[in-house]
């Protein structure tokens, strides 16, 4: 499967194997923890990494946008890894040259010392029925969609097989997004409650873990 359709709070949400959500009613693409500028930040600080490795994130996002044609894109925090560096430039010119509305929730990495006019920046926001944030936050029992955690799942099989894969994690009143960025780490999560859902992601597919 490439996508899984799942209803949350009576809203149809599409979960895509490329680590983002599509909320049909709002025509919104939702993704988190891109960490733009991470590679260049390392290079700037004397850690020689291959420079061309930083281009893939934007290329991927552009192709997703042309496929889904969203009106809005929500970044749930940590869009930028650190202070402004040259890696931002392509993103900034991309923001400028499209009619899509971009919204960013400020994450712990987003220093935002560089003004970006096309970006609507919030600490958190409520768009019924969802409360969007970077950190997990439960507010008045509203369903929370957030990032920050970089969740991943350890899949085990017969013969002591283990695979570690990024995942979407739905737990009670919250949904955690995997990190969209290609050069980021992860944190392992488990199925804790009977109603929890975990969708694991490979390079080509999305799978549902049966609880």
């Amino acid at each position, binding site marked *: 499967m490439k996508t899984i359709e799942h209803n949350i709070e009576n809203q149809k949400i599409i979960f895509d194997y490329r680590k983002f959500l599509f909320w049909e009613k709002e025509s919104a693409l939702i993704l988190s923890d891109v960490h733009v500028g991470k590679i260049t930040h390392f290079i700037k600080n*004397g850690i020689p990494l291959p420079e061309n490795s930083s281009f893939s994130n934007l290329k991927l996002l552009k192709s997703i946008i042309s496929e889904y044609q969203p009106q809005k894109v929500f970044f749930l925090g940590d869009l930028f890894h650190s202070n402004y560096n040259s890696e931002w430039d392509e993103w900034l010119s991309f923001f400028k040259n499209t009619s899509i509305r971009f919204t960013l929730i400020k994450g712990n990495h987003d220093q935002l010392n560089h003004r970006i006019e096309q970006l609507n920046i919030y600490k958190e926001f409520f768009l019924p029925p969802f409360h969007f944030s970077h950190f997990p936050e439960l507010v008045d029992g509203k369903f929370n969609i957030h990032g920050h955690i970089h969740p991943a799942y350890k899949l085990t099989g*017969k013969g002591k097989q283990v695979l570690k894969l990024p995942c979407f994690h739905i737990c009670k009143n919250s949904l955690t997004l995997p990190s969209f960025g290609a050069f980021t780490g992860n944190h392992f999560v488990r199925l804790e409650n009977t109603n929890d859902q975990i969708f694991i992601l490979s390079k080509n597919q999305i799978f549902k873990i049966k609880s």
Partner: protein
Amino acid sequence: MSDFESWVTNWMGKKNWKPQKFQSDTWKAVLSGYSGLVNAPTGSGKTLSLLPPILWPNKDCSLKTNVFCIWITPLRSLSQQIRISMEEFIDENNLNLTVGIRNGDTPQKIRNLQRKKFPHILITTPESLQLLISSKDWVKKFSSLQAVVVDEWHELIGSKRGVQTELCIAALQNLNSKISIWGISATIGNLKEAMSVLLGDLNKNEKRVLIQSNFKKKITVQSIAPKEIKQMPWRGHLGTNLIRYLTPVINKSQSTLIFTNTRSQCELWYQKILAEIPELAGNMAMHHGSISKEIRIWVEDSLRNNQLKVVVCTSSLDLGVDFHPVESIIQIGGPKGVARFIQRAGRSGHQPNKESKIYFLPTHAIELIECSALNKAVQQEYVEQRKPYILCFDVLIQFLISLAVSEGFYPNNVLNYIKKTHAFSLITLQEWEWVLKNITIGSNSLKAYNEYKKVDILESGLFKVNSRLIAMRHRLQIGTIVSDEQLQIKLINGKRIGVIEEWFISKLKKGEVFLFGGQFYKIFQIKNMEVLVKKSKSKKGKVVSWMGGRMSFSSYMSELLRNELYELNNPQLNKDISPLNYLAKIQLQISTIPKENEFLIESFETKEGFHTIFYPFEGRFVHEALSHLIAYRISLLKPVTFSLAYNDYGFELLSDEFLNIENILDNNLWNESYLFEDLNQSINTSEMARRKFRDIAVISGLIFTGMPNKRKKNKDLQSGSQLLFDVFRDYEPENLLFKQSFSETFEYQLEEGRLRKALIRIQKQKLIWKKISKPSPFSFPIITDRLRESLSSEQFDDRISKMLNNYS
């Protein structure tokens, strides 16, 4: 007799000592300007073979003279001991000379004094020496250097610390080519090579000499295994249920040193012994590398002063420190190598001509075979070689940045002298240029990386680090021993207890109890890289564990082991391994014991899946490689996924379906041709190179480990080596550091040469395939090993689907 000789022998005479031949030979060689290697065991007076002739030309020198001798030791704990014996010689000869220590334990006050003026003799470690080279004025400070001595060179040569030492020595020699270089080494299988690695490969005709002491020590090995094999566990490596067999040895000895193989084993045994013999409370201590310096020094001093009856320790007490009073040595579990075992045995009966006795307690049944093999090895006095590392670009990058941080360097000059080292004698011009580009423009492409900042090239052509931040980060990270992130353990009142690895503490919560240094502690708070604890009266808690590399049998040890094993088929068993009869009987009942011309494969099913066990008896490292190679070759025949496990005896391929060996064996499974290609393929799909890459990434500065014990961890500059590995694999596979992770895997982990020999041997053997209904005694330690790797030829998404089906 020369003036010098009468001077020294006169002094020795007052102590009723007589110069030994290796000492007087070394004196002559040093005084005639030779460099070389002294092969002498601990306790034989090796320091006295080098110290007096180095002091002789300086005995009238004034306090103003700068450092003339650098004495490098691999372990900080040895420094104190060496200084005491040096000062004894200096004081009793009324010399006006100073001895000082510079290492990670040196307090800031003394560092400040040393900044103004070094002592005449500086005792240091490879890491601290490189740090000194990365500080300003090092050229001036070392300008009057005459000699460099590397103590316990055998401990350094087989590691990257050896390469680091070679580079530092080359830099010092570049200041003054007349500096003489001396090493001191215990017996290893390649002493001549050890000398030429230390002194450099070029100029072989210069004055150099290998001096060996004829100091022979009688060593007896005694097994203290249970009389009946039924009491032996079949697996595991802790063996604490065998404690009662230790009690008689401890009781009858004045003092006992108990060697364990890991730090957590050390902690466990300490508890168990205390529970078994409560009278020992107050007379027993523990010594391992993570315990705080103060406690370690206290244990060492108490041992020396005969104030402790029992010390449980790890390899942290393997090295030099002299303990005359130790009466008995106990080794718990297989020591994996003959040299290590002999060194440990040498901790007792330390005086020349006194017999050393070592008791061996096997922790599981099969180790009984090891005991007998070790005994033979000790009698034949065979010890392993230590293979020197070459072309470590990570260490070279670290060294070059050290030079650039202090006074800067001119590439041609440095290339000239590093080519004289053994490690870099084969460096190509291309590789050298790659390294220079890496530290200056950050890439091998012609275009400089955007904003890359590390080493600048000044107009004069000098390579120099100008950024204070880069310099500070670099100094914090000098060294080639890579460990997991360490946290300090402190009592609430601030007293330091030791260090613990972050991954272990991250599994514990506030209020939980753990065992460390023989005491239970309750976690009060974890903050700022510190774990604050309170002593706990609890009798239960998690035993601290550490990720350390596991050791492998040397090839000689493996051969001895195979021979012992073949004898199990032979009724004439010697007394030492007779308890093995029971084990042999069960092994023969369930499966079989291979003869010299046979190769055993066992297959059986458990709820975990289908186990196939191969028994080459070639040591852990060879089995690691063989398991990948064979798994890969089988996976070419059909889509399959294996989980791999291995120990010193054999390896396991665990799969979710039955493996019909008869169908597979015809396919040239053991062929030694295409070895390199097939291994390369199998390693590409495995974790081995990734693990090597972690060390390389840290040493070369790709991973910034943060300020030790500092609040600010520079989180935005941290990344896992796994991520970096993927970045290089996908975007810059020609990167020399990335490539080095593969060449290290081949050379040092997989031991390609040994592997090839093993394959040729196996091809000549008759394969015996036993389909058995339950695990055999031989298979037990392997199938219960939790450290596993995997190899698969199935489609990734198919594997996921298959595994997901298990979940419903």
